């Protein structure tokens, strides 16, 4: 029996994982969510911005990791549009523009936001550092045209926006190291306020920047998206994703405990 547990076929584990992912997606169970301080700080910051303010969202995640940052993007954009806050979208990754543009269009349509007046998507330009530093002096020197090929200087909402001085917050939705690059170059050099929404695997990297105040807020993975949705009182993809993640976490914890029990019994028997 012990041998069987210790040498469990990995296909059994794969089936268990599939079940704990599929089942909660079909039968959602709503669990109470405790909102963490970093997520609340971001929400409070945006909530305190007056109508007409501008935030920049950097969609720095690719199709492979969109499951976590996309619900965050939806929640934050919904919050901004409801408060009349303008959004400038852009990305530092070459394979993201189509994804981000489609998402912005969708959320804008749901909130009756108008392209060029309430939001704009600048797209992608090569050269991470040069793009971040270049926008600090003049956004239109980096993005002469937006993703829809409109001249940036002729877009109504960009009339009074030249560089970071006119942007109240940058939210980096990331699945890699871009948040640190934004902090090092945009926050340190230009004093741009930065918040982040990152995938769960890189949360630990972000905490030193929270403590120093270089990040004013942080949404950690599905949990962050679900927390933000709770603050908005609008459960969405983040809450559904967190539900699934809960069962997957429990399965992994259960497997680790089972593996360790079997390991200790075997070690005791072997003396």
């Amino acid at each position, binding site marked *: 029996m012990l041998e069987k547990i210790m040498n469990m076929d990995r296909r059994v584990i794969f089936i268990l994982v599939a079940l704990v992912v599929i089942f909660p997606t079909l039968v959602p169970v709503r669990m109470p969510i*405790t909102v963490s301080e970093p997520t609340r700080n971001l929400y409070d910051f945006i909530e305190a911005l007056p109508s007409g303010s501008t935030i920049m969202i950097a969609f720095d995640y690719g199709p*492979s990791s969109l499951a976590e940052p996309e619900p965050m993007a939806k929640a934050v954009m919904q919050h901004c549009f409801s408060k009349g806050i303008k959004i400038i979208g852009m990305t530092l990754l070459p394979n993201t523009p189509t994804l981000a543009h489609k998402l912005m269009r969708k959320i804008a349509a749901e909130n009756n936001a108008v392209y060029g007046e309430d939001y704009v998507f600048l797209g992608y330009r090569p050269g991470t550092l040069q793009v971040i530093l270049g926008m600090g002096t003049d956004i239109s020197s980096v993005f002469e045209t937006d*993703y829809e090929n409109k001249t940036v200087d002729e877009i109504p909402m960009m009339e009074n926006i030249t560089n970071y001085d006119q942007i109240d917050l940058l939210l980096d939705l990331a699945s890699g190291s871009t948040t640190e690059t934004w902090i090092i170059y945009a926050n340190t050099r230009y004093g741009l306020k930065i918040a982040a929404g990152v995938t769960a695997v890189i949360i630990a990297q972000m905490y*030193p920047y929270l*403590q120093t105040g270089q990040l004013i807020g942080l949404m950690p993975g599905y949990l962050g998206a679900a927390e933000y949705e709770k603050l908005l009182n609008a459960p969405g993809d983040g809450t559904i994703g967190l539900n699934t993640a809960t069962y997957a*976490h429990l399965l*992994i*914890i259960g497997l680790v405990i089972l593996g360790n029990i079997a390991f200790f019994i075997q070690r005791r028997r072997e003396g």
Partner: protein
Amino acid sequence: MKRQIPLAFCFLFGIAMIFTQFSPHSYSQAVYKEVIDWGLIISPFAMVLAVVTLIQTHVTRINLRTEHWQYSLIVFVGMIVMVLIGVPFGPQNSIVEWLYNNVQVPMDASMFSLLAFFIASAAFRAFRARSFEAFLLLATAMIVMIGNVPVGDLVWNKVMSWMPWTDGASWLRQWILDVLNNAARRGIILGVSLGVISQSIRIILGIERSYLGGGD
């Protein structure tokens, strides 16, 4: 000459860019802006180099008939189709968007999703408390995992209701991230930063030349 000119440029621009960080004078800032603009022009060439390298790698694989060389043909099919449609018609062309949304996005997402299956299998086989250090790692990971999902607080508030505080699972997770994790991360960041500074000085002064190629 082949080495002296790049070294001289590196020194000149390195010193100039350091200087611009400390001088708000309009001349200094004009130099800074000009160099950034040059950088923006040079950056796309890095992508050209990446494409050339990709083509060279896969042509070699096909020529040598290495293992799974057939997949290299698929790389070329994908690249040629996207270039033929994407370059003349732009990224917003309906065919490009369709291929992106219905081929690239699902394939990328599927690849990443497989991680969950392998992590579960690897955690079961490898995450064993074989020593005290391994036990500490295991216990910390368990606390962070359980605190990362709402069921942690739910169980805490039911089972540990006699304790003076609520939501203990998420509080413990937050404490680990805020204190233990921060101490370790900060040490790593300081070490890496000092390394970057010393390496940058070596490159600017021409002591470190490996970026020029040739092995020295």
